[in-house]
């Protein structure tokens, strides 16, 4: 008897540990292995670093989106805010490196205002967030187009582009080290701390789980909503600075990113109705999506087929996650 008990103990603990591993992590590793089989350069340290750099903006967006999703909302305005950041960056700096820092400050200011407007409309005007932020998406995109006159103009100075583009060369072991990974680590660390290690984070979960109950328990629901949209908007500005840095000025850099960020979270096991989600999931989800895009590109499939495959694989990943959660209880 005692022997049998001893055997069951560790095994069930192992099973529980496996269950705790985010499904997105597993899917990501599988995709990445497939990428490595097609193009072994991705398995070298430099390949991994380059991949992470490419995934960083989406992971940062997903980290911000996570707060809104956990609180039970959606933020559809982040993609257009990314576009506004890139275009605004080129207009504000006017190719003058000495203006970079105040321009970045001003862009965060704009982002904060947009986030607070989103939050205020949702919290105080009681508008469903999907509608409120859809409105913001359109207005912010329109503002970006008006600002630029509709066609990309000007350039971003190199010190502005550093965050998305600069790479340290000749680093021991990993060979190259992109600055983008530092930004990603800092943002993800901050988001983890904010969501999983503070009272505020617990309140975000409470609001998403049951807003009424949270309010009765003394949580200022409106304030929490205001904050999560502000956090999401700030993450969008950060992603915008990174994407502008990576690719330069572009008028449709942010198009569709809001849905990719939400999809990344969903793949990472975040519940769309709120109350459930983890930062590890959001980041792993973003890595999974980036790996999927890379994989389909490496296969050289035509665009329509790529999009179809993307959709099907996403649905499968999410369905698998939900099934696993039901079984896991």
């Amino acid at each position, binding site marked *: 008897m005692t022997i049998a008990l001893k055997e069951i103990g560790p095994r069930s603990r192992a099973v529980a540990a496996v269950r705790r591993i985010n499904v997105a992590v597993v899917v990501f590793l599988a995709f990445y292995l497939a990428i490595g089989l097609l193009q072994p350069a991705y398995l070298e340290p430099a390949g991994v670093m380059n991949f992470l750099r490419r995934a960083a903006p989406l992971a940062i967006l997903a980290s911000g989106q996570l707060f809104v999703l956990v609180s039970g909302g959606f933020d559809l305005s982040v993609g257009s805010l990314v576009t506004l950041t890139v275009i605004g960056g080129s207009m504000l700096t006017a190719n003058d490196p000495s203006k970079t820092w105040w321009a970045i400050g001003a862009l965060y200011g704009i982002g904060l205002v947009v986030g607070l407007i989103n939050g205020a409309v949702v919290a105080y005007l009681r508008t469903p967030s999907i509608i409120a932020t859809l409105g913001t998406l359109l207005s912010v995109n329109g503002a970006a187009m008006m600002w630029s006159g*509709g*066609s990309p103009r000007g350039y971003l100075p190199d010190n502005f582009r550093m965050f998305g583009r600069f790479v340290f060369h000749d680093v021991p072991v990993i060979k190259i080290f992109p600055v983008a990974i530092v930004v990603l680590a800092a943002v993800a660390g901050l988001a983890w701390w904010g969501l999983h290690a503070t009272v505020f984070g617990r309140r975000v979960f409470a609001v998403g789980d049951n807003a009424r109950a949270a309010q009765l328990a003394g949580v200022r629901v409106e304030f929490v909503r205001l904050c999560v949209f502000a956090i999401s908007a700030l993450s969008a500005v950060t992603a915008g600075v990174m994407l502008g840095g990576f690719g330069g*000025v572009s008028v449709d850099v942010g198009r569709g990113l809001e849905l990719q960020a939400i999809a990344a979270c969903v793949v990472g096991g975040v519940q769309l109705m709120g109350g459930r989600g983890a930062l590890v999931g959001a980041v792993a989800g973003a890595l999974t999506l980036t790996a999927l895009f*890379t994989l389909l590109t490496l296969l050289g499939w035509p665009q329509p087929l790529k999009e179809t495959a993307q959709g099907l694989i996403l649905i499968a990943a999410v369905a698998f996650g939900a099934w696993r959660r039901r079984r896991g209880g």
Partner: protein
Amino acid sequence: MKIIAPLVMSAAMAGLAGGALAQSFDDPKEFQAAKDLLAMTPQGPADKPWLQHLDGKEVDTSQYKKPGPYRICFSNAGVDNPWRVVGWTTMQAQVDVLKSDIQSFTVADAQGKDDKQISDINAFVSSGNCDALIVSPNTTAALTPAVEAACKRLPVVVFDRGVLTQCPVTFINPVGGYGWGIQTANFIVSKLPKGGKVLALRILPGVDVLETRWSAANRIFKENGVNVVGAEFTNGDNAKTKAIVDDYINRFGNIDAVWMDAGATAVAALEAFEDAGKPYPIITGEDQEDFLKKWKEKGLTAMAPTYPTYQWRTPVIAAVEILKGEPVIGPAWKLPQPVIMQTDLDKYVDNSMPPLHYAMCGCKDLPGYPQRWGGK
């Protein structure tokens, strides 16, 4: 970047207009004609290419002669991209040079809209305040009737994109898209190592001027058995260009040459090679300063074809000559279409000019250079 979405409609409309007007983007006759033009030695002053012509005939303009100074009107398709901005600036400076002959230069900006340009032209014609009309058509087929109506009342000069009528006194443009394709593809063929991989980057499909650039280049690539691993559309977007090139580098290990149908995103394409730690490819860009600077700085194997912005000077000069009754080249005035090669790169690189300035502007002798063009 000089041709944007509205032109897609022009192609579609030309198609709808019937068999006689249907455009083929891969016409062997046009290809051969462009090849012949490129082989010609331009006639006219060598230091003033905007006054040169390729095998042009003079037309008599004595019927338009009248005492000056003249009132010239200009219907512009738009100034919605850097190429047109540089061209328009150059044109205004040319007007200043001819101040003694030009009493007024009135412009209407159609902002890329056919209907606005049609009413602009009608308004100019009926106003009676124009001695001559210059038109830079937004699209070819849609503007033809308006230009035909204007021809009946006053001398008309058309430049850049054409119209489907012979009525203007002269139509000024460079060799064109087929010429661009021939010049660039021949360069790549001459430099490419055996079996080298070529990536073609295009802005968008369906635009006549861009389609002909590609069809001519692709014809030469095929004739020479060049391995074109992909032809992708970038929408003229830096970020998209960089991502596409990055994908191709990853997929094929390396790319030996990049062919472009317009140079606005050439620097973004090169950045993808830098960031991937790969050697620079053989590349054909355009005469934008940012590309020329990069080329010089990194010692690239490159060439810059041009769709010269100096063509904006010619119509102003022609309009004044017509009103003076002096003969001009017509009804077709083909301007030379020079390319920038390694040997004359230094002549065109100018660090004081803005990144999207077009070096082949022929504007250095014009009043206000370089500040007027955004230079320091």
